[in-house]
Structures are given as structure tokens and as C-alpha cells.
């Protein structure tokens, strides 16, 4: 299915490439000939070392329905794909009113000239048909309009009430082909839903699709819930809750609703998070005025102490390979981010930017650690590299907190409270494309699931 014209081939004669040194020399000396260093008859070489990153214009005509009865669902699938791609900030879906060609047969090659005329760079066409056994067949093709090639083509079978997921999966496939990275649309968010007046807030655990649809409540709201976290491998979450007694860490199966307490510790346990393999939970245990990091194996129930300092060590998070832990500690005087081996050992401080740094989260890609920055009275969301370099603030303001990475590590979700109550927002790791996530009411403490498929 891959375009064959693009395939590389060995080519014996290659003119000398123009490197930056030559360009500088040319600019310095004013010698024009350097920029075009070849004689007539040979290849003229030019270097393009700056691009123009912008959302890619894509045309997404409504999927073709097998029968008129499926037209509405076909339209809905298309609109979910369009919304996913648009929200990513990397695509600019073209207004359907501009389309010249009307796609009626998805097996025929589209008239690329018609799509070039409206400046579409990619075109996704699809068809939705109900099978004899009641299942839904959804197929799509992705075209490179300028090269005139098919880039991708797939078909899926599912039950009709799964149409939304199929749409997200197709959006992921388009995203992956056109950006070169895995998508994140077929994923869910668990968060704390907040209702009622500020002093008597009812906090319930809720789960929804990453685009805000399909909200479902997981707890009844008779206790306070905080910091829900996804198990990377199963449909399970861990969180902290407290009703009458002390705050404790719990495990909850999303599908069955079954709940259990993690460990039986004398003091308060908090800030839980799963290991990348889902076999362990790492958390903080309160011991007098101090807090230390512990890890519990979920099978053997064996608990291991990782830190032993007269300080508050909390918010631990594994690196995606499971070899390291980043956490927050005030052992140096103020809250900062430290990194240590996952089995224990010396911890190294990595955050040296302005203000305090709290709540570190390691990206699933491993390239960044997101954190909540406390600068003066402002709460910011920032990222830094695991070696402490490249610290960058993505957004700041009165109160921003609780970053969580999308499965592909390109987008961060967090909550922002402007006074009356918190809402969820997403932002690209480059600091662009900040968007509010639709939720039924106030929402905080989001946790992004891994890809479902």
C-alpha cells in the first residue's frame, strides 16, 4: 500500500552537497558562485534547512453509506475523525463546502486535481456498511493529494454501538501516517468530577473518552477521591480516597467495579502510581512529619522502602522503561524534582529552574518529565528533560496543576482553577494549541489512559 515512486534507490552520480560552511563562506565573501557550486551540465544543489511547521490541510468528505439508513452514522464517524484531527492542532480540516469532487465510490482513485485546487494535501475517504450478521464494516483510504498516491487503507468490523471507537482508531491511523508518530485518540481519561458548592464539594471518580464523550461515574461521591492513575496494562486504576478514616490508596477495576485497599499501613498512604508493567504500585507513606517512598508488588504484596530521609518524598513516577523513578522532595529545603534508580540508591536533583517544582510525571516517550511549577503565587505547567536540561514553562497562571501525558507523549492534560472551580485543559508539549476539554461539571486530577487498542 506504500507509494512506490518514493522508494529510494541507489543513485551513482550525486553532486557535492552544499553544506552550511559553504553558505556562510558565501555570505561572508559575497561570492555568489559558492551558492551554486556546480558547473553547467552538472546538478545544482540547494539546501533547505528551515521548514514551516503548520497544520496540514486535510479533506475529510463524509464516509459513503452502504444504505441510506446508515448515512447518519457515516456522517457521525466522519465528524468524530475531523474533530480529533482538528483538536490535535496538527491538521486543518477543510470546510466541506469547498469540496469540488463528490466521493461516491471509495474504490476509485479520486480526482486529485480537484483536491489540489482547494489546497488539500491529504484526503481521507471511507465507507460504512452493515454486514449480514449485524456487524458494521468501516473502511477508509488515505491519499496523498500532491503525490497522487494512496498512503494507507484499512477496514474494521465491529458492533454498531462501537462506531465512536472505530472513528478514533481511524483518526489515529491518519495521524500516524501523516505525522510519523502514534496517535492518542483511542484513549480515555479518568478524572475527579466535582459538583456542589465549594465548601461541600462532592468528588466522584469519572471516566470518559479523550474527547469528552461517554462520561461514566466510578464512585458514588460519599468520600473524597484524589489522584487517580491508570494501570498501563489493564483496565484498572489506583487512587487515594478518604471517608471517615485516614487517606488510603485503593485499586479499582473499571469494568467490574471491584475495589481493594493497597497494603495495610499504619499511617496515611498517598500519591500512588503503577509501574510500567502494571505489577507494582509506588506511593508515599507518612511517617511522623516525614514521608517516604515505598513500592508494593501487587502479586506478592511485598513492600519495599525506597527512601529514608527526614523529608517529604512524594509524587513518585517510573520512567517508561521502569529503570528510574522521578519524585518530588523537600530534602534540599524546597520542593524539587529528584531522579533515582527504581530499586533504590542515591537520588539526584534535576530541577534547578525558577521557583519550586512539584508533581513530576515521566512522558511515555521517555523524553520529558512534566511538572507543576510554583513560581511566587503562580502555578505553572512545565517540562524538562530527565537530565534536568531544557526546562520550559508551557502555561502559567493563577492555578494550573496535575499534568498527565497522552499515550504518545505529545500532549499534556492538566487542570486549571480560575477561582470558582477547576476545568480540564490540554496543551501541546511545545506549549501551543491550548484547549479546554468538555466535562459535565468542574473536573480535576486527570489521568490519561494508554491506547485502548
Amino acid at each position, binding site marked *: 500500500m*506504500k*507509494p512506490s*515512486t*518514493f*522508494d*529510494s*534507490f541507489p*543513485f551513482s552520480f*550525486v*553532486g557535492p*552537497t*552544499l553544506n552550511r*560552511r*559553504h553558505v*556562510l*563562506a558565501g555570505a*561572508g*565573501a*559575497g*561570492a*555568489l*558562485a559558492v*551558492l*551554486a*557550486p*556546480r*558547473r*553547467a*551540465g*552538472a*546538478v*545544482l*544543489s*540547494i*539546501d*533547505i*534547512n*528551515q*521548514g*514551516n*511547521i*503548520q497544520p*496540514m490541510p486535510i479533506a475529510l468528505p463524509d464516509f459513503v453509506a452502504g444504505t441510506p439508513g446508515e448515512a447518519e452514522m457515516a456522517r457521525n464517524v466522519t465528524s468524530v475523525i475531523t474533530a480529533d484531527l482538528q483538536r490535535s492542532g*496538527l491538521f486543518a480540516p477543510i470546510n466541506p463546502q469547498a469540496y469540488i469532487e463528490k466521493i461516491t465510490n471509495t474504490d476509485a482513485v479520486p480526482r486529485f486535481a480537484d483536491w489540489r485546487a482547494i489546497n488539500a*494535501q491529504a484526503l481521507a475517504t471511507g465507507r460504512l456498511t452493515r454486514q449480514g450478521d449485524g456487524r458494521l464494516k468501516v473502511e477508509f483510504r488515505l491519499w*496523498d493529494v*500532491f*503525490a497522487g498516491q494512496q*498512503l494507507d487503507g484499512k477496514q474494521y468490523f465491529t458492533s454498531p454501538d462501537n462506531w465512536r471507537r472505530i472513528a478514533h482508531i481511524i483518526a489515529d491511523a491518519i495521524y*500516524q*501516517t*501523516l*505525522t*510519523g*508518530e502514534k496517535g492518542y485518540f483511542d484513549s480515555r481519561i479518568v478524572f475527579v468530577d466535582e459538583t456542589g458548592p465549594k465548601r461541600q464539594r462532592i468528588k466522584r471518580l469519572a471516566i470518559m473518552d479523550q474527547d469528552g464523550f461517554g462520561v461514566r461515574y466510578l464512585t458514588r461521591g460519599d468520600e473524597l477521591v484524589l489522584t487517580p492513575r491508570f494501570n498501563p496494562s489493564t483496565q484498572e486504576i489506583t487512587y487515594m480516597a478518604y471517608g471517615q478514616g485516614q487517606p488510603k490508596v485503593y485499586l479499582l477495576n473499571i469494568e467490574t467495579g471491584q475495589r481493594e485497599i493497597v497494603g495495610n499501613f499504619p499511617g496515611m498512604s498517598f500519591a500512588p502510581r503503577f509501574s510500567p508493567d502494571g505489577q507494582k504500585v509506588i506511593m508515599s507513606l507518612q511517617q511522623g512529619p516525614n514521608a517516604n517512598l515505598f513500592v508494593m508488588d501487587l502479586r506478592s504484596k511485598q513492600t519495599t522502602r525506597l527512601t529514608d530521609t527526614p523529608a517529604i518524598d512524594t509524587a513518585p513516577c517510573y520512567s517508561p522503561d521502569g529503570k528510574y523513578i522521578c519524585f518530588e522532595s523537600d530534602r534540599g529545603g524546597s520542593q524539587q524534582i529528584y531522579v533515582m534508580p527504581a530499586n533504590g540508591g542515591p537520588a539526584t536533583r534535576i530541577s534547578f529552574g525558577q521557583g519550586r517544582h512539584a508533581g513530576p510525571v515521566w512522558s511515555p516517550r521517555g*523524553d520529558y518529565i512534566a511538572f507543576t511549577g510554583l513560581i511566587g503565587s503562580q502555578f505553572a505547567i512545565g517540562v524538562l528533560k530527565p537530565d534536568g536540561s*531544557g526546562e520550559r514553562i508551557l502555561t502559567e497562571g493563577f492555578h494550573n496543576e496535575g499534568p498527565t501525558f497522552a499515550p504518545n507523549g*505529545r500532549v499534556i492534560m492538566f487542570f486549571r482553577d480560575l477561582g470558582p472551580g477547576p476545568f480540564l485543559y490540554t496543551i501541546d508539549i*511545545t506549549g501551543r494549541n491550548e484547549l479546554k476539554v468538555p466535562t459535565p461539571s468542574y473536573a480535576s486530577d486527570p489521568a490519561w489512559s494508554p491506547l485502548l487498542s
Partner: protein
Amino acid sequence: MQMRTASAISTGLHVGVLLWATLSFTGETFHVTPAQSLPVDLVSEKQFSEMTKGIKEAKKPTEKPKPLVEKKADTVKPVEDLKAKVTEKQEVKATAQKAPETPPEPKPDPIAQKIKQQPDQKEAKAQPTPLPPKRPHIPQQPKFNADKIAALLDKRDPTRQAATGAELNSAPSLGTAMGNAAQLSQSELDALRARLMALWNPPVGIQDPQDYVIRIRIQLDRTGRLVSPPRVLSTGHGQLYDTARDSAVRAVFRGQPFDMLKPDHYDVWKDIEVTFDPRDMFRG
């Protein structure tokens, strides 16, 4: 009394020192060398292209056109001329001249030869008026080379390269047969690069940009349109590489027609190798 003598001696000595000081220290006026003002012309890039382009009606130079040279080459080239070998006539001449003059020298030194030739002429002229020559002529090239000193002090390498040659020549020439300046102007090249830069939308997720340098060979017709689909010369693997490659190919497709390239210079731009290099954009 003693006090008096003492103060008298003291006064005398002081006066003496002061007198000596006023007489011996001669004030010299502070010299300020007047800074030479350099005439500077502001020339637009287009004018510059035109200036260096050369004029068709210009007189054909009698001698070989010299390329622009800012810096002498470090190593002195031997006299032997590659072109001389091709044509028989010149070779005969060259050997005829060389043979009597420099038989024992291990290395023929062009500069030394020139210097040797010069005094002969001058002496011949100078004979009627018997003035002694101003400077003794050193037959060998001095080891102390001012150009080399300058090269030693120049710590700017390797980011800067001057146009080098055997001898300095600051005058832009009519253009040489090897140069492209006369054929494709800077503004045309810049316009071509600017268009491709504007249209190249590389994938944002690049982490090791050196793995995603894409070289593409394109062939154009006289209207600036692709004769055939662009050919990708570089190789790589993975979804991100495919996306980077497709983005570069797409930029070339979208850039058509490359109407900034003038048909007069078609021979120069009919075949172009474009390198899409994301390293400057994604430095991590």
C-alpha cells in the same frame, strides 16, 4: 640657627627638583592618527547580482579572467600549468624558458622567478642614471610570510572561508567559465529556496534530526514543472522517516511551477538536488 640651615637646604633642594622637573619633562602633544574613512556603497542584493553577473557587451579580456581572491593560498603552487601540458606550443615555450634559468633548484618557485625577472628589467632601465637599487633583492622567498601570520592569528576557522587563490585579486571579474554567477542570480536561488522553505512542513515529532535528512533529485522542464516524480536519494526506515520523506516530496510537488527560475538559465536549473535538512530546526 640649625633649623634655618636645615630649612634653607630643604628649600633649595625642593626648588632644584622643581626646576629640573619643569625643564626636563617636555610635553609632547598627544597624537591621534586620523581614522581613514572607507567609502561604503549600499548595494541591494539584486544590484549585486547584476554587478557580478558581468555584461555581455564587455570587452573580452585578453588574458584569462581571474577569479575573485581574498586570501592567498597557503601552499605556493608549482609553476607547471595543467593547461600548458595540453597544448604543445606552450609546453615548448615553458621548457625553453625554464631550462636555462633554474636548473639546480629542487623546487621551481614562481614567486622567486618573478622576483628574479624583475630586477633584470629595472636594472636595464636604471643603467643611464646610476642610482643604487632601493632594496636588495632577495632571490629566495622569505620564510617570514605576513599572510601566514594573518592565517595563524585567524582563529575564526572553520566557520569562515575566504575565496583563496594564488594571488590577491579584489576586483570582481567578468566571470569565469566555471562560475555560475553569470547564469543564475542570487535572487533566483533565494526565491527557489524561500518557496521550498515555506512549503516544507516536516513532521513535528523528529527527535534525532540527523536521521531525517532527505535528499531529492528533481528534473524540471522549461516552465519549471517536474518532468518526472521527484527521486529520493537518501535512505532510512521507520514511520517517521516515511513521513519526513513524504513531507519533502510534497514540498517539491507543491512548489510547482518554479517560475522564479528564468528560462535563459534553463541549463543550470533543469536538474536540481534539494537537501531537506531538519537539523537546524530540531536541536532538542
